[in-house]
C-alpha cells in the first residue's frame, strides 16, 4: 500500500530518465520530496527528516543511472542504505556483568509506554538464559502498579521485591539491591513509574535512584506509535538521566514506527529489543534493516533492488 505509492511516485518522477546518464540535482530533489513525505507520514521527526534528506541528496546527485536499475530504485537504494546506517547497522544485546556480580537495570519512560510489561519480559528472557533475576516495584504512584508487577513476575517465575506504596522509590531501589545480594540474585530490574520528561520532580527521582544504587543499564521504553514528540522525550530522558539503550514496544501494531529513527538519531543509543505483543514471550531482537524498510513502508522493494 504505502510502499506502492512511494515506489510508484518515484518511478513517475523518473519516468523519462532511464538511461539518461547521471542523476542531476533537480532530479534528485523532486524524488526526495516524495521520500520526505513518506518519512513524515511514518512519524519521523521533522528535523531529522530534513537532515536526512540533505545527506541523501548529497550522495545521490551525480550517481550513474545504471541500466539495471530504474533511477527510482537507485534513489530508494541510497535512501535505504542511509536509513540503515542511521538506525545502527547491527543488533545489540543488553550488556550484563559476569554472573558473580549484580547487574542493575533501570526501566524508564513515559506513562503507558510498556515498562512494567517489558520488565517482566526481559526478566523471563534472562532467566531462560541462566540468570537469576529479580524485579523491584519502584512505581508507588500508579494504582495497582505493584500488583501488576507481581502478577507478571509470577507468570515468568521471577521474584518481585516490593515495599508497598509508602516508601520512596529511592529507598525501595536501595533495599531491592541489598535484598538481591542476600537472595543470590544477579540481575535486578527496577520498574519505575511512568513520567513526563518535563516533570522536574519526577525526573529528579530517577537521578536520585541512580545516585543511591549503582545502575548498570538505563533502558528507555518507548511506544512505537509515538509521533513527532519522540525527539523531545528521548532527548530529555537521555540528557537528564542518561540512556544506555532503548526498547520499542507495540510494534505488533501497524505503525510505521518512524519514532525509532528519531530516537536513534537524537540519542545515538542502540535499540535493543522490540515488543511484539502483550504476552510475556513477545519480545524480539531489533533488526535495523527491517526497521528501515518498515519506516519507508516498502518491505519488498529491497529484495527487488538486491536482485537488480
Amino acid at each position, binding site marked *: 500500500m504505502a510502499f506502492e505509492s512511494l515506489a510508484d511516485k518515484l518511478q513517475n518522477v523518473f519516468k523519462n530518465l532511464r538511461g539518461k546518464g547521471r542523476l542531476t540535482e533537480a532530479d534528485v530533489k523532486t524524488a526526495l520530496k516524495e521520500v520526505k513525505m513518506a518519512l513524515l*507520514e511514518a512519524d519521523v521527526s521533522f528535523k531529522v527528516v530534513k537532515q536526512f534528506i540533505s545527506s541523501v541528496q548529497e550522495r545521490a546527485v551525480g550517481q550513474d543511472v545504471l541500466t539495471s536499475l530504474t533511477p527510482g530504485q537507485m534513489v530508494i537504494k541510497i535512501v535505504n542504505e542511509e536509513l540503515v546506517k542511521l538506525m545502527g547497522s547491527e543488533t545489540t544485546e543488553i550488556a550484563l556483568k559476569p554472573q558473580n556480580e549484580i547487574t542493575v537495570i533501570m526501566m524508564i519512560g513515559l506513562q503507558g509506554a510498556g515498562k512494567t510489561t517489558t520488565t517482566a519480559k526481559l526478566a523471563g528472557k534472562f532467566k531462560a538464559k541462566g540468570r537469576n533475576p529479580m524485579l523491584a516495584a519502584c512505581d508507588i504512584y500508579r494504582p*495497582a502498579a505493584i500488583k501488576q508487577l507481581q502478577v507478571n513476575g509470577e507468570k515468568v517465575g521471577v521474584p518481585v521485591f516490593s515495599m508497598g506504596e509508602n516508601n520512596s522509590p529511592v529507598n525501595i531501589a536501595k533495599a531491592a539491591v541489598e535484598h538481591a545480594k542476600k537472595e543470590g540474585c544477579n540481575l535486578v530490574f527496577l520498574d519505575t513509574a511512568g513520567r513526563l520528561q518535563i516533570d522536574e520532580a519526577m525526573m529528579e527521582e530517577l537521578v536520585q535512584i541512580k545516585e543511591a544504587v549503582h545502575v548498570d543499564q538505563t533502558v528507555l521504553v518507548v511506544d512505537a506509535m509515538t*509521533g513527532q514528540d519522540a525527539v523531545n522525550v528521548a532527548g530529555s530522558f537521555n540528557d537528564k538521566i542518561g540512556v544506555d539503550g532503548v526498547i520499542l514496544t507495540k510494534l505488533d501494531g*501497524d505503525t510505521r514506527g518512524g519514532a525509532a529513527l528519531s530516537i536513534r538519531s537524537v540519542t545515538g543509543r542502540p535499540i535493543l529489543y522490540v515488543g511484539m505483543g502483550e504476552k510475556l514471550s513477545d519480545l524480539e531482537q531489533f533488526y535495523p534493516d527491517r526497521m528501515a524498510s518498515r519506516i519507508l513502508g516498502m518491505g519488498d522493494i529491497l529484495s527487488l533492488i538486491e536482485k537488480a
Partner: protein
Amino acid sequence: TKTRENIVSGMDSIFSGFSAIDEDFYEELEETLIMGDMGIQTTMSVLEELKKAVKEQHIKDPSQCRQVLIDSIRKKMDLGENAYEFEHRKSVVLVIGVNGVGKTTSIGKLADQLKSDGKRVILAAADTFRAAAIEQLSEWADRAGVDLIAQKEGSDPAAVIYDAIAAAKSRNADVLICDTAGRLHNKKNLMEELKKINRIIDKEYPEAYRETLVVLDGTTGQNALVQARQFMEAAPITGIILTKLDGTAKGGIAVAIQSELGIPVKYVGVGEKIDDLQKFSSGDFVNALFQSDTRNKGE
C-alpha cells in the same frame, strides 16, 4: 483547574516573527503543524485554505493570518450540539482504545466528575486480561466513590458487561462506564470481542443512551488515524478522549481524525490525578498547537 499557559505569547512569536506572507512564512507554519502531529494531508489542506483566504481577503500582514488559521482549525474541531447528552440520560459509556493510552485512568476521572454532578455511576471491569487491570479500576472506583462490577481475571469480558448492565438496571444507575482491555486495532480476534461487547449492550440495554469513546494517547503520531478508523468498524464511535496533553505532544492527529472521520474530541487528559480531565476546548487546543513549548505543569 489547569490552564494552558503562555499560549498566546508562543503563538504570537510565529506570527510576529515574519514581516511578509511569503514562502518562508508558510514553510514555518507547515513545520509547526507537522511537528504538532497534524499530518501532511491535513496540514496541506489547512494551509491551502489559509492561502485562499489570504488571496480573497487581501491579507498582507502575517499577524492577521493568525485568526484565520485559528478559525479554520477550530471549525474543523466543532463538537456538535449533543456532545455531552449522555450525561443527562440513562447511558452506557463504552471506553476503548489501544494499549496504555489511558482508558482506565480516564474512566476514573470521568466517574468522579459525573458523581460530583450527582449522578449514580457504575463501572464495569471488562478488562479481564491485563495483569491487575481489575485492581487498578477498583482503586479508581474507590477514589471516585462509585460502584464497581467485576469478575475474576481471565473471565469472559462479555459476561462482565452482562452483569454490569443487570446491576445498572437494578440499582437504577444513571451512567454505566465500561472499561475494556487495551487492544491494537489490527488484531482481528480482539476486535471481534469488542463487537460482541457492543452487541450485548445493544441487545441487553436498548433503552440506554449510547456513548462510545475512543481513547487516544496525545503522543501518538499518524497511526492514531488508522486506530480511529478501525475502532469505528467495531463500535459506533461518538467521541475521543485525547490524553497526556500535559506533556509536550500536541495531539494534532485529532484534527485529521475529525476532518476525515467526523469524530470529535470530547475530553482531554492533562495529568494523572482525578481532576485532570477536561471538556474539550477547541480554542485552547488550537492555540497549543502553535505553542513552541507546551507546559502546564503546576498551575
